[in-house]
């Protein structure tokens, strides 16, 4: 019998990845390495999102649009479209944002490299208070 991966496994992997990312950000001196740490953090969030989308049933079950769905508390909320997909959609948006952020950050790092001849975060310290 194959062991079935449960939600906890995914969450642990994601938390581990998040910790690695934060560790990278805090310890690396090279701006590009720091950026790689940021990518790890963003992707740990993506693992969480997709895992939750697979395992967590939404607060209300699927229903036709605009029809209120009774909740445990007796309150009502309207859920549109396919709520199980919102985690995937969220993750897709995060991937796009990560790409945009990386593009801008790399552009800035390139500019710094051209004007200062290096991208060591510690050496970029003209401003101090």
């Amino acid at each position: 019998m194959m062991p079935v991966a449960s939600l906890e496994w995914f969450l642990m992997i994601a938390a581990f990845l998040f910790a690695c990312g934060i560790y990278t950000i805090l310890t690396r001196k090279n701006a590009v390495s720091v950026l790689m740490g940021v990518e790890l953090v963003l992707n740990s969030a993506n693992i969480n999102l997709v895992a939750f989308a697979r395992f967590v049933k939404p607060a209300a079950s699927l229903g036709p649009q605009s029809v209120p769905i009774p909740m445990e508390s007796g309150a009502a909320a309207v859920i549109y479209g396919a709520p199980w997909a919102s985690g995937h959609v969220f993750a897709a948006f995060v991937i796009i944002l990560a790409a945009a952020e990386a593009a801008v950050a790399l552009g800035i790092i390139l500019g710094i490299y051209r004007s200062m001849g290096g991208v060591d975060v510690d050496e970029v310290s003209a401003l101090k208070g």
Partner: protein
Amino acid sequence: MQLGVVENLSYFAPEILLTVVIAAVILVDLTKPPPGSRLVSRLAATGLAATLFMLILSYAELELKQRTRVFLFADTFVVDPFGLFFKTVGCVCAFLVALFAGNVRRIEAHGEGEFYALLLTTTLGIFLMAGATDLVGLVVAIETLSIPSYVLAGFYKKDRASSEASLKYVLFGATASGAMLFGLSYFYGLAGTTSFAGIAQRMGSIDALTAGIMLGLVLVGFGFKISAAPFHMWTPDVYEGAPTAVTAYLSTASKAGGFAVLIRFFYNVLARPENPGDPMGPWIPIGDPGWTQFVAVLSVLTMTIGNLAAYRQTNVKRLLAYSSIAHAGYILLGFIVLTGAGLMAMLFYVAVYVFMNLGAFLTVIAVSEAGGGEELSDFRGLGWRAPFLGVAMGAFLFSLTGLPPLSGFVGKVYLFAALIDQGWVWLAVIAALNSAVSLYYYVRVVKTMWLEGIPRNDADVIPFRVGSYNGFLLAVCLVPTILFGIYWAPLERLAKYSVGANVTQPAPKAGAKPVH
């Protein structure tokens, strides 16, 4: 009220117009308008003025149709007076900054088209932040504000300080939004839905530790945006290195956007009005109430660190950067009392703060454009050489301190009153002590301008001309700073009206269709 797509779009008109203006700015810049024509900056300012007009129309439309709020795009975006208030604040800031920047030679030399396209995109981000009621929309909106801001901070490409500011901003910002996203992914996992209303229904069922971790991670992102301690480290460097017009924008509009999402998120997901029909009354936290204490500590840290560090600054931009950190701490005071009055005080303070802070930064721009510098020593005796500039800067700084009869005083009175009303006396005392400390460094600037380098007789005065354009803009910032200190009732009414409709999901009756 559920609307069809076309009617949806009519409520989204300000955002659509802004998007059209962004495209127009890029296209007009491509036609290479003759240098010195200022075509692009005028187009951007006109576009922002038109957007402001559309926002007023949105207010009117809500009033005329007697709706408190309208949900758009499958409940992921809301148009309500609360969001409109922050959109208006953001739009006014962007408009004034566009006017400031229109007179800065260095920005023109670096490419006006890029500058205004990026500036307007950040404004669009603030608009989306103010209306987001869904995690996906919230994240996209925050990044729409953040990513162009990183570029704007480094707009002077060859300038070391500016490049460094943008590097620090992007690294801090990306880390903060990464941590925030990680926290938000747990919120999604909790409820299985990305809507604030759906999450609020599950918040009560989790234990304090889990909620604390989730909130802590999310607060990293929001705290970064409003530069609250301990996520403020980027602020002084970025504010000092970035072009002054950008600094003025980051310290006002960007911060207002941060407060908009902070209030919207916490007061929809983690608190609800005690009496559902009365958001002006007390609110009760959903689940564990510990977050108010936690934010109270953040607020104290923020204002104390900001004020103590501002104390020994010699660069005026850097001094104002620390002062803006301290002000984030003051504004947070209204956040933790969990009453409508506290929220009203926050909104009021944000509105008066943007004018006095924009005015202070505009003075710095005017001085450096007229041949002065940004160091405190460059301001010596400036009051005598440019009296209007000196008086205006004095008014902005005294208003930031919170001295009557200026608008900052009224704002602080509302904040402190809301605190004391809910029994947070110790916090009010700390805040008042902080205000007293801040008097020292604000007065130091005024003293440098008026009491140092005093000319012996009138003939010795070398006039310092700031130009009629910058003088006019100074007056534009000065009028609300003084006016709201004397006659603040309209602003108070507007803030109250905005808070009155901040609930995105009125408590629905069992089995009933939600009434929006």
